[in-house]
């Protein structure tokens, strides 16, 4: 059996998530480098027909676990399904998207298989590694590259002996591969025995989900408001964004408070953005927000709390009351004193 890079594919409302397609593209790159095949694993109900699309996007084989009891994501039955297919096919590498689902499901599967896993990688690569203790050389293994210490430090991590080598990879970093209808591949359907015990362990009582209409990914300038802004502050945030020709963003707290719709949310459970300029207004900088904006070229923070963690990831910070600072900033910018202008 060929050595495989397997991608766990997330499906939402019958559609393959973009971040899963990004991973298929990345897996193709790794597979070519390491002489491996690309596998895709899709779990759910009514997901069978997605197999062809995954082949068009670059998968050589698609593993499908299609079961009416798997219609809604639940951790334990999904762990069972993924661990079953991974255990039976012994891939070299398994990649998950670093989403809410991926960051919960992947470590659970890794622990069940007693293998290593690296979280929230910003890149993965294939290379060789010499163990400094034993001198043993490992060829074609997975380099898992990720920020650590709150983003200040990068680390390269390997899993020399255990298989599969597992990682979650941050969404939004790689291009979505072109669709190629001439590609062919193998589809394998699995039926996994799901015990009542794991099916009963978690019951989904309610799902609330808003669809996304605003795309912040291509925005050059984003002005985001947070908990500190309040509904009144958001009027100022919108005014500044409009003045600068930018888009409006928000933290989860602001969305939950109902000041702005989910479309605008930046962060772990929102969008990952990397504009030229990101202006954070009244955002304290919880880790869930920072992961969504820390690749912005220039970060400007306005917050009255000098200790707010957002200042640690900012290029420019204004410590002050946003209700005083923003009107003054808007006034000065309107006077045509745009920096860099004549």
């Amino acid at each position, binding site marked *: 059996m060929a050595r495989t890079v397997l991608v766990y594919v997330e499906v939402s409302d019958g559609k393959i998530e973009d971040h899963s397609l990004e991973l298929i593209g990345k897996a193709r790159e790794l597979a070519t480098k390491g002489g491996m095949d690309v596998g895709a694993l899709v779990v759910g109900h009514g997901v069978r027909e997605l197999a062809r699309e995954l082949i068009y996007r670059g998968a050589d084989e698609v593993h499908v676990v299609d079961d009416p009891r798997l219609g809604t994501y639940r*951790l*334990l039955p999904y762990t069972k399904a993924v661990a079953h297919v991974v255990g039976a096919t012994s891939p070299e590498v398994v990649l998950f998207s670093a989403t809410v689902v991926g960051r*919960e*499901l992947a*470590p659970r599967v890794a*622990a069940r298989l007693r*293998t*290593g*896993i*690296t*979280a*929230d990688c910003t890149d993965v690569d294939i290379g060789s*590694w010499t163990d400094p203790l034993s001198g043993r050389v490992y060829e074609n293994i997975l380099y898992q590259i990720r*920020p*650590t*210490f*709150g983003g*200040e*430090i*990068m*680390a*390269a*991590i*390997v899993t*020399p002996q255990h298989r599969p080598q597992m990682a979650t990879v941050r969404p939004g970093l790689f291009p979505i591969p072109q669709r190629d209808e001439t590609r062919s591949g193998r589809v394998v359907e699995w039926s996994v025995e799901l015990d009542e015990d794991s099916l*009963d*362990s*978690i*019951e989904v*009582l309610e*799902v*609330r*989900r*808003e*669809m996304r209409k605003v795309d912040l990914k291509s925005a050059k*300038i984003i002005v985001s408001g947070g908990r500190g802004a309040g509904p009144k502050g958001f009027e100022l945030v919108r005014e500044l964004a409009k003045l*600068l020709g930018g888009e409006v963003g928000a933290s989860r*707290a602001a969305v939950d408070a109902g000041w702005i719709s*989910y479309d605008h949310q930046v962060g772990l*459970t*929102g969008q990952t953005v990397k504009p030229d*300029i990101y202006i954070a207004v009244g955002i304290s900088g919880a*880790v*869930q927000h920072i992961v969504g904006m820390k690749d912005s070229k220039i970060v400007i923070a306005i917050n009255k709390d000098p200790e707010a963690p957002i*200042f640690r*990831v*900012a*290029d*420019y*910070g*204004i*410590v*002050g009351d946003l209700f005083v*600072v923003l009107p*003054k900033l808007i006034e*000065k910018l309107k006077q045509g*004193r*745009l*920096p*860099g202008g004549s």
Partner: protein
Amino acid sequence: MPLNIVVLVKPVVDPKAVVRFRPDGTIDRSAAKLVANPYDKYAVEAALQLRERYGGRVVGLSMAPPQAADALREVLAMGVDEFVLLSDPRLAGSDTLATSYALSAGVRMIERKLGKVDLVVCGIESSDSNTGHIGPEVGEWLGIPSVSYVDTVLDVSEGYVVVKRLIEGGYMKLRVRLPAVLSIAGTSYQPRIPTLRDVLASRRKQITVVGVDDIGVDPSLVGLAGSPTRVVRMWRIEIKRKSKIFTDTDVDALVEKFLEELRKDGITLSR
């Protein structure tokens, strides 16, 4: 229904401190002050609120060198009843698989002392490693359900816990069988600030230090030997933020200073 809750707390290098490297490229943690992982304090707050609502006991569990005990005092001052500190040179170098194994053995040890543990809670991730693996991995080692990104614990009754958990674009309400592991995503549980009286009272609380042999873990499954992953190298990110922070009591001067600096750096504030 009184609850027995174990809260996992990681002593971390103070996030405000600058990370230092040793000549061999590893992180120098010796000089740094250790504090409780800020994200775990949300979990501590959640545990304390559950104890206030349902009664019961909140036991802290940490895995760290003995000098980390100081970092645990601040959590005891918040109201945690007692602490178990898992400390053993053989645990050094543990990755998340090995750490979660040792912690799960710690939970089992607490269970032998306290009776059934209903909930294990922890922060969504640590401020130094940022993996978020410990909750789901501890759940797997214990063979019980886990839920990550828990926003609020809504109800505990009849062997189940109902939680609101964050997802992309909204939330899910889940009914989860007990015992369970919950990783608390923060913001809903603002950690309380201990009063001076709390701090004094916490000095009488117990931190029990235990080693690998006390909790019955297989030494081959912890430390470097029990860790599938290896850190090859670490390096400082080159795109350092400029961190030019402006303060001024006069708002006109404040905004002017900021705009002046942008002009100097050649940054245009428009598309």
